[in-house]
């Protein structure tokens, strides 16, 4: 166990270290022109040491230094009450709730569509092209319209954002589940036929369990993409709350540190969500007698 853990920790840490180093270098080179400019205007020379120090501590840097982002993250998560509008945890929760709702609706919708497609020739022919076409529309263009239209009919808050998540997340589920529900071998299907099993019996006793691994794989993609959907859905809401709002206000006021910390929060959230789905998969597959 220990050896295994070490075996993975060392390379991961090495990669992280390299990334941080490159990041610091980038911070210096991207922020240096501004400092040189300032110095030139003030009509004085700037030494390298001072330049380095100043590039790492700008208030609105082009690229904030890692420690700046870290301090901001710490400050807005640990040092603020979670109910506060200035708490990143609060904003993350706003986004997360829309993500989860959208993911749940999207998964259910995807499963229902897949079941329909697998069982109905007409649906197979007619629905799949639309499902694919839906994903070629740029979500950034559609999201504001969905929000505006839903607002007009009196829907606001969580649901419109969740629906954008749904719009993105049902797609991998449909594709994965169609494949999964069609994955049983001919011989397994023949067996059901010899028993004179009904279609719903074949679905629940054969197709569904056979599709389970496919479902989890597509749910991993779907949950990550749901988060993207929720964030995109927050952009046109007038920046009220949520990680998307943090990104938007951050960019209005040039608060790059805020943008970056929101980005990190989003990434961490996505990683957690995918991990939770992965854990659920491991548990379910174990209960289904998967070979360890």
């Amino acid at each position, binding site marked *: 166990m220990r050896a295994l853990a070490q075996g993975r920790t060392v390379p991961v840490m090495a990669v992280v270290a390299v990334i941080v180093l490159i990041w610091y270098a980038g911070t210096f080179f991207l922020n240096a022109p501004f400092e040189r400019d300032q110095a030139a205007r003030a009509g004085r020379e700037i030494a390298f040491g001072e330049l380095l120090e100043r590039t790492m501590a700008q208030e609105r840097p082009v690229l904030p230094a890692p420690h700046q982002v870290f301090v901001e993250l710490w400050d807005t998560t640990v040092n603020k009450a979670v109910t506060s509008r200035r708490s990143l945890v609060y904003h993350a929760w706003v986004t997360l709730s829309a993500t989860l709702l959208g993911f749940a609706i999207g998964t259910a919708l995807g499963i229902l569509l897949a079941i329909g497609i697998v069982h109905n020739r007409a649906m197979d022919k007619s629905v799949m092209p639309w499902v694919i076409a839906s994903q070629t529309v740029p979500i950034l263009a559609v999201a504001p319209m969905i929000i505006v239209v839903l607002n007009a009919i009196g829907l606001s808050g969580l649901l419109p954002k969740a629906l954008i998540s749904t719009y993105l997340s049902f797609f991998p589920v449909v594709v994965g589940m169609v494949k999964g529900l069609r994955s049983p071998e001919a*011989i397994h299907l023949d067996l*059901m*036929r010899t*028993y004179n099993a009904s279609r719903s019996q074949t679905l629940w006793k054969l197709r569904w369990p056979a599709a389970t691994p496919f479902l989890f794989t597509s749910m991993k993609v779907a949950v990550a993409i749901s988060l993207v959907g929720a964030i995109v859905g927050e952009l046109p809401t007038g920046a009220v709350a949520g990680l998307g709002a943090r990104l938007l206000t951050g960019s209005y006021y040039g608060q790059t540190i805020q943008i970056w910390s929101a980005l990190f929060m989003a990434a961490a959230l996505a990683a957690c969500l995918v991990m939770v789905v992965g854990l659920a998969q491991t548990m379910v597959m174990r209960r289904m007698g998967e070979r360890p």
Partner: protein
Amino acid sequence: MKRSTGAAQPAAARPAKTGAGPGRAGDGAPTVISARGLSLTFETDDGPVNALSNVDLEVGRGQFVSFIGPSGCGKTTLLRVIADLEQPTGGTILVNGVAPEQARLNRAYGYVFQAAALYPWRTIENNVALPLEIMGYAATERKERVQRSLDLVNLTGFEKKYPWQLSGGMQQRASIARALAFDADILLMDEPFGALDEIVRDHLNEQLLELWARTNKTICFVTHSIPEAVYLSTRIVVMSPRPGRVTDVIESTLPRERPLEIRESRQFLEIAHRVREGLRAGHSYEE
């Protein structure tokens, strides 16, 4: 071109229902499967394939019929037609006096595929219970029947195991148990022991005969092995390919009680010889 090497068993007191003791009818038993001029042509990209051509077949209740023949002679296809998994393109076939589809809807047969075809997410007992669940047996009866069928194939103690935890032979036995769990009086078996080693195969052959004697099922059994066919069957159907057809039907003269040693007897070797001759005759069309 059917011939017969003597009558089989004297038709003793014929059992009216399944499970009615050892008295079993050979010839003259009520017909369970009857095919006339059965043909099946697969339309493939490389043109039509004559998988079955003008096959006549009569199988009586309680018979053990083996189908033997070279690869591609339509054995599987014939079994699948009987089971309504494939539609014939010509001729007629009746199973239990009705069309195969009706027989399938009546759940008249259990089918053992060449591969065990167990569902990997079900334990052995749940695999065996699958047809019972589908056919709506009550939970208590399900349990009882699962136990009984696992017992029949000597798999007691492996109920909670998953298929991958069992050897190939055990998996195949589980799939036989699954076909035995419900009251189908016809058992269709497609090379069920094809992938097993000789010793396991002998053992399973013995068990299958024992089971047949106990349950009075009608068994259609596909095999590539001449000794296996002769050892098990009351009747051997020899088939040949291109087009797939029946070239010989041999009635076994062996007694019903068949210890493994019977395979060294003269009678056994004579029947085996005839089967081999039949196979050779079919083969000479090729190459």
